[in-house]
């Protein structure tokens, strides 16, 4: 019997605590719900999106675009079911008007429809699956980072620009992996001498590396996100292949945390990104200085995306005077204008609310202080837009 009282007590305590936490704000505060991945091995992606976003909020002293905001952050644990619970709580209890933060493409198909159905705005700081860019595009859905395929299209174009005419490509045997290879091929246009699909979460790549040695291509492109890419690179270098058959990669495979984990093994790797530390624009300089001061570390590309997301929201809030769901047409029109200074340089939205922006080529080098840096070497594509915009009828 005691147990029951205890349980009820726990539930009530947790609820009231949550309510108190949620309602201690002024009435005209705009609430933003962040459903992101903070735990699991991939948790640093969500942490950086959150920290980049919060940097913009702190810079304005708790406001975005002059409007007081309250940001609720929850961890989805990379589980769709958990993402759903959090989103429902955000929408129904906390009455958030903007949902953001989703990192992975297996979370967005749950979070985005719920948000859109409630009439709220969904602004993605990272994942951009093809269905939401094409057939299932929605007037209240915006992707700030990229459409997934474009990461790899840029890599394909980069490989082509570097003069390669044949490539060996590999990715995990799942949807994002297949999309990545399709995206790469769409712009590479050279000969594909080998196309290999690996196991999700694979740790040993000896068999694939032997195949690569046997095929002896001019270059290798892979999309093995997170730990898988690190496993591959370590083993590829040990097999003595990196200097013989160079790697050309996309941004997620060469972020600053991954470079830290592999050290000098990353030297000389060509990769492509829509943002870099050394981009010479005032917004980027302010962001870098602010981030390092606030958190004492170098931001990753994910942090830059979180920051851009907040700045975009700020521009729209300023334009509508803080009206979001009260005047959705105005807020949407303001978002569509993308009237903010992106840390990545020129930025605008296409008709499907996905970015049209510039892709940069980079190479990993040793900086003056002996630390590894990604150095921007040029522009791969200007005003690049995804391939799905034509399917979007809005």
């Amino acid at each position, binding site marked *: 019997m005691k147990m029951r009282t205890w349980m009820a007590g726990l539930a009530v305590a947790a609820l009231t605590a949550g309510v108190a936490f949620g309602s201690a704000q002024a009435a005209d505060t705009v609430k933003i719900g962040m459903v992101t991945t903070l*735990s*699991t*091995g*991939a*948790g*640093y992606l969500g*942490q950086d999106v959150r920290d980049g976003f919060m940097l913009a909020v702190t810079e304005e002293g708790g406001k975005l675009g002059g409007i007081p905001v309250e940001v609720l952050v929850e961890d989805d644990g990379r589980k769709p079911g958990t993402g759903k619970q959090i989103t429902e709580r955000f929408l129904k209890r906390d009455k958030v008007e903007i949902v953001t933060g989703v990192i992975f493409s297996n979370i967005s198909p749950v979070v985005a429809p719920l948000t859109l159905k409630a009439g709220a705005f969904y602004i993605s700081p990272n994942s951009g699956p093809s269905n939401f860019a094409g057939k299932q595009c929605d007037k209240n859905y915006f992707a700030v980072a990229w459409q997934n395929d474009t990461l790899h299209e840029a890599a394909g174009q980069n490989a082509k620009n570097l003069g390669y005419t044949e490539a060996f490509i590999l990715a995990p*045997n799942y949807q994002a992996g*297949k999309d990545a290879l399709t995206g790469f091929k769409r712009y590479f246009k050279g000969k594909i001498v080998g*196309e*290999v*699909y*690996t*196991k*999700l*979460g694979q*740790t*040993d790549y*000896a*068999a*694939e590396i*032997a*195949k690569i040695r*046997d095929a002896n291509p001019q270059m290798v492109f892979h999309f093995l996100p*997170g*730990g*898988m890419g*690190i*496993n591959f690179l*370590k*083993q590829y270098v*040990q*097999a*003595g292949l990196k200097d013989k058959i160079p790697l050309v990669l996309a941004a997620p495979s060469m972020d600053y*945390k*991954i470079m*830290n*984990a*592999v*050290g*000098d*093994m990353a030297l000389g790797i060509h990769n492509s990104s829509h943002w870099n530390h050394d981009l010479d624009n005032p917004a980027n300089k302010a962001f870098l200085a602010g981030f390092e001061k606030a958190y004492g570390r170098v931001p990753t590309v994910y942090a830059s995306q979180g920051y851009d997301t907040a700045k975009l929201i700020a521009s729209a809030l300023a334009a509508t005077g803080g009206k979001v769901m009260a005047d959705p047409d105005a807020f949407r029109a303001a978002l569509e204008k993308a009237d903010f200074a992106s840390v990545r340089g020129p930025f605008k939205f296409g008709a499907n609310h996905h970015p049209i922006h510039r892709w940069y080529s980079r190479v990993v080098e040793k900086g003056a202080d002996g630390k590894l840096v990604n150095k921007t070497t040029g522009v791969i594509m200007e005003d690049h837009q995804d391939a799905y915009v034509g399917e979007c009828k809005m």
Partner: protein
Amino acid sequence: MLLFLEQLLNGLQLGVFLFLVAAGLTLIFGIMGLINLAHGSLYMIGAFAAATVTNWTGSFLVGLLAALPITAAVGMAIEFVVMRRLYDRDHLDQVLATFGLILFFNELIAMIWGRPPLFMTVPDILNGTVEIIPGIPYPIYRVVIIGVGVLVALVLYGVIARTRVGMLIRAGSTHREMVGALGVNIRVLYTLLFGFGAIFAGLAGAMAGPLMSVQVGMGEGILILAFVVIVIGGIGSVRGALVGALLVGVVDTMGRAFLPTLLKTMLPPAEADGIGAGLSSMAIYLLMAVVLVWKPRGLFPAHG
């Protein structure tokens, strides 16, 4: 043909590595009847300890040697606090309690080291390749792993079959009370044994560091593979673990290496790639199912 030989070698090497991970697991089950999901956590702790100490001292050897007592200590602490209450329980309780340990250790590591992967690389002397098979440069570090695996197999065989401790171990696994009656403190013996088993997990984790990403949750995928290995081999049998590991290593590698190509002779290339990859990721589980249907207690059923 050369490629086939190379892939076979890759498979055997993966097998030896899996044996390293599975050895401690099967040892602890064989002697104590304990099913320990936290073995993957010990593996992760070994890797984190090795990476950290290596980065401090600049010496992989020091890092490796430091990882062993650290995992042993953590292992003994686990035994003292949790495991010893589980010896008389059924396997279900053991699975769940050690599942709880996984959750605990994943967060503990994330709180101490953060979630981004740690830096760890092969020491310079072990960097580079040798030609074991003429014409095929093979990473020296992988050769070293094979060497360490063989060494561990020999040590285990020696300890269990030839020493007084081994005798006590073998006796203890069947007649726990009897050994206790002989004046041996069975509680202390078990704590030490668990630490001994943990050392193997730590060794495997430390050896994996230069080859794989050192990050939170790295032990879980490997743990499942290790279980597949010992179930195929017969839980509790060290010999079974060795055979099972080699089988799993070879089947997994060969599947990844040749299944898609093989399927391409029958199917359109695009489908063959996908199905081939799908089948090869299921291959080891298929192998396990087949072995268990044929021999429900594994290839080398341990006594009892």
